[in-house]
């Protein structure tokens, strides 16, 4: 049981990432594609936090535990995840704004129809 547990979180991250990529590539609607990109982003959060986890440890916040009394998980990857989440949301917003512009200029949000318009 333990050997499976040692890689399971990483494999879930890989699975979520590939699922998001599949959705991105086969999407027929640019808004849906942006949602799939959000799924891809969440895979990176799972990977980062899985790397920093430590068995039997607690959160690296010392306001209510004595420093050194218990092992804590890795705070560096958590800080990376934290900023990643908020910045990822604003990048999603920027992409959605671009989609709205495309909808205004071309009257469609289907990537295939857009390709035909250009060609």
């Amino acid at each position: 049981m333990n050997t499976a547990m040692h890689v399971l979180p990483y494999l879930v991250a890989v699975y979520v990432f590939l699922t998001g990529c599949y959705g991105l590539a086969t999407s027929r609607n640019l808004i849906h594609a942006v949602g799939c990109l959000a799924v891809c982003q969440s895979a990176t959060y799972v990977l980062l936090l899985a790397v920093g986890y430590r068995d039997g440890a607690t959160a690296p916040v010392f306001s209510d535990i004595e420093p050194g009394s218990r092992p804590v998980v890795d705070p560096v990857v958590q800080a990376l995840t934290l900023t990643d989440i908020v910045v990822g949301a604003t990048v999603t917003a920027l992409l959605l704004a671009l989609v709205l512009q495309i909808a205004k200029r071309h009257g469609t949000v289907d990537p295939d129809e857009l390709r035909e318009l250009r060609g």
Partner: protein
Amino acid sequence: MSDAVITVSLLLVAGCATAAVVQRDPARQALVLSVLGAVLAVLFTVLQAPDAGLSQLAVGSALTPLLIMLCVRKVRRRGRTKDGAR
């Protein structure tokens, strides 16, 4: 014990991510994404990352779905007024 909780929340994340990709209607996808955000927040809390969990709860289950919904509404409204003018 904690291994079981982690496994369950990991599988929930994988399931929600699949549902979010398979759901092709963006308005419904926004709802699934907000569930995915909440499940991710639970996973982060289980992985002892309360900071990231809080952030994911605020962003993933409220902000991103809201932006997608507003975008869908704008695109649909455009379609309606175009058809009305025709």
